[in-house]
């Protein structure tokens, strides 16, 4: 399990830049960011260093921010990498709330996904997946 920083944003002009500016001003490096948006609000999901500290800092600055444990696995950066993972989840009856992936270096990608029953690391490991550790993604 790794910790993702989650921030609730109103779907209005300037909210995202205000968020990234606040994080930048604190000298925090972001490694990846994904936005889920609806007509009225957005949810920013971020991998950054020291996520818990940043969540607290953002909360103090007036944001609705939290850390969310998510699952992350390394997959080879080749066709079918994500498909194999999703096939496994499907066969193991694991319900995925959301998922995204990003490339690390030249030959691997990291698939991130959130499931309802949180700790499936062991099941993943047994199925042969390489679990991503926090230190693979961010500094503390």
């Amino acid at each position, binding site marked *: 399990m790794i910790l*993702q920083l*989650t*921030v*609730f*944003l*109103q779907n209005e002009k300037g*909210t995202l830049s205000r968020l990234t500016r606040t994080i930048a001003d604190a000298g925090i490096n972001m490694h990846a960011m994904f936005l*889920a948006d*609806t007509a*009225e*609000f957005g*949810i920013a*999901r971020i991998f950054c260093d020291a996520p818990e500290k940043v969540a607290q800092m953002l*909360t103090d600055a*007036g*944001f*609705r921010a*939290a850390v*969310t444990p998510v699952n992350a696995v390394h997959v080879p950066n080749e066709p079918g990498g994500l498909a194999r993972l999703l096939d496994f989840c499907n066969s193991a009856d694991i319900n995925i*709330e*959301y998922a995204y992936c990003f490339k690390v270096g030249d030959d691997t990608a990291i698939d991130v996904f*959130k499931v309802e029953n949180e700790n499936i690391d062991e099941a993943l490991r047994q199925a042969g997946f390489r679990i991503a550790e926090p230190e693979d993604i961010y500094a503390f």
Partner: protein
Amino acid sequence: MYYQPDIETMSREELSKLQLERMKWSLSQAYENVDFFKRSFDGAGVTPDDLESLEDLAKFPFIVKQDMRDAYPYDLFAVPMKEVARIHASSGTTGQATVVGHTARDLENWGDCFARGIAMVGGSDESTLQVSYGYGLFTGGLGAHAGGEAMGCTVIPTSSGNTKRQVQFLADCGTDILACTPSYALYIADTAIEMGYDPAKDFKISGVICGAEPASENMRQEISDKLGVQYCDVYGLSEIMGPGVAMECAERGGLHIAEDQFYCEIVDPDTGEVLPEGEWGELVITTLTRECTPLIRYRTRDVTRIVSEPCACGRTHRKIDRLRGRTDDMLIIRGVNVFPSQIEQVITAFPEVATQYQIILTNKGPLDHVELHVETEPDYPIDTVRKLEDLKRRLEAELKANLQVAVDVKIVEPKTIERSMGKAKRVIDKRGEQA
């Protein structure tokens, strides 16, 4: 069980007869002895003789708070000063104070009204009543005190303040019933807990009689749970008498009006028309027995409705529902009356939503549009779009069911809801602003 069983369980027919008889007396008392009523009745072309039924009261003009201010100090008194036993005055935070006088008989009636509420929380002449309302010009302290004495209770007149001592009396003197404002009851409970007591277990107390300020359902529940008591809501206003005009029995379906002493009407706050029984509107009170300051059709600005279904407690006097707010707070949205308190009630039923909220009214085209801004509680999981949208939909459905008006719920970031120094600005009405 009842304090005055013959009066409190009187048949409706007998009660109406008594009300009509007393109303005639009260109209004459006002018309013949108070200049204001003489002028106002004459201006409306009515005299007390025009009252043949209770419904005829609708022909008579209203009296409003400003009229009472204008009469400062004694112009509304209907008896000579030697018969005035006591005066009370409401604080003049928004202008001139209003002074209300009481004869010895008025005070006795007041005590009886409040004593009925003491019986409603199971009190008797064996009970110990701790009065933690402020004593003085404010009617709370002395009103509750008179109730306790009328019932024959042991009264502890602690008045308000010195909260640790309040707790000490609760612990050491075997207080059965506490009378105070709801916020103070909660403060006393919390202080007791801080001092290491579990009031629900450690104290003998079994009832609280709370009034003089609004209390949400959550707050009432919290007081009941923390103190381990039955909660009795008491209604009253200093212009009319003080606490005891209506009190809530154990059935909790509203507050029994002391109908032998007061006649209540519900009117449309805009037109002044009397509304059919059961509809929400402004409470208008006519005193039936008051000698010193009789009031005919006093506009309370409190919004409630009359509950006339028989009550399981056996009392025949009709009830007023829990107050929805003041007429000044009422919003008219697409022709429907909506009170911020109703919205608040819905929100408090959703633990995932913070109690901060803001209502924004706009009109897009001919229809009013209502947007409700809410924040989620800090620990609510914000990570899933589905859950947030589901929360929004559930809130919208609940609001529609309660208000009969469609409300667009918008979940906003914390602190976007404007907080002013004192009271938060709950309603922003932008209707009529746009072209």
